[in-house]
């Protein structure tokens, strides 16, 4: 497993290095925006990463809510499976927020160079900022609260939070404001020139592989932490049960 992790990291770094090479030195620049258009090769993969990890967070949260009160599932301990799902939910939410932050910052830099402004309250930008704030609230809840009720509450918040994702995706289709019309899957006149696509594919693959690696590492440590908390809780319970008996012995 450890070897597989290192192998995955090596492959990820190789794909990212090639993605950088192709994006900067191989594919042609855009006719209108020139070299600036190359921001797209880091901007779009960060949104894809955000979409993937928030969807993973949603799936893990739904699974957690579905199995948290069961004892057995598929012949296995349902509580352990629920804990795993909760760990996946936290790791993927963190990774999604990192990708969302990258997308917002690179978009802002692009906006400054292309439109002359760092920010505007346009439908796409505003809905994305709200999404970022919702998942930030989710992470703060997880940071400052504890126990099973926190897990349940955060899973519910994750489900409500995800409702904003389709809104972000559709915002440039429903409202024509500052942000350009969708480049991918946006209709008959949308799309990139085929000569630019290799840079998109390499960077998309590289950043998604990166996200899976980092989120996988985070999942392992969160799950370990959850198990340690469970053990500490059980020890405290056992101690509580033991104490009245000890008190009785002292009285006798």
């Amino acid at each position: 497993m450890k070897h597989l992790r290192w192998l995955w990291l090596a492959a990820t770094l190789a794909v990212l290095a090639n993605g950088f090479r192709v994006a900067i030195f191989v594919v042609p620049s855009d006719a209108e925006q020139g070299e600036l258009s190359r921001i797209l090769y880091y901007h779009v993969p960060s949104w894809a990463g955000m979409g993937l990890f928030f969807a993973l967070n949603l799936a893990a949260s739904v699974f957690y809510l579905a199995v948290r009160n069961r004892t057995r599932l598929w012949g296995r301990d349902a509580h352990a499976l629920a804990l795993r799902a909760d760990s996946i939910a936290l790791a993927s939410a963190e990774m999604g927020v990192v990708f969302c932050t990258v997308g917002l910052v690179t978009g802002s830099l692009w906006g400054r160079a292309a439109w002359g402004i760092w920010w505007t309250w346009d439908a796409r930008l505003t809905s994305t900022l709200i999404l970022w704030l919702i998942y930030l609230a989710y992470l703060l809840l997880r940071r400052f609260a504890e126990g099973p009720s926190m897990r349940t509450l955060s899973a519910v918040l994750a489900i409500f939070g995800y409702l904003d994702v389709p809104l972000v995706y559709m915002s440039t289709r429903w409202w024509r404001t500052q942000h350009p019309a969708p480049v991918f899957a946006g209709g008959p006149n949308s799309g990139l020139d085929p000569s630019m696509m290799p840079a998109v594919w390499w960077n998309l693959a590289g950043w998604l592989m990166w996200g899976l690696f980092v989120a996988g590492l985070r999942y392992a440590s969160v799950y370990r932490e959850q198990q340690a908390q469970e053990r500490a809780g059980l020890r405290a319970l056992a101690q509580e049960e033991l104490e009245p008996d000890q008190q009785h012995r002292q009285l006798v």
Partner: protein
Amino acid sequence: MQAPSNPMFHRHLVAAYCVTWALQLGYLAYVVRKHLAGRARL
């Protein structure tokens, strides 16, 4: 003056790529720190 054609001289492009790496590596550092602290506690 003609704008430089080398993409490496476009400051917004360079800033976007640097910020991406800084955020991703910063989060990786946090994850590794947590991972190692968890293993040390075992």
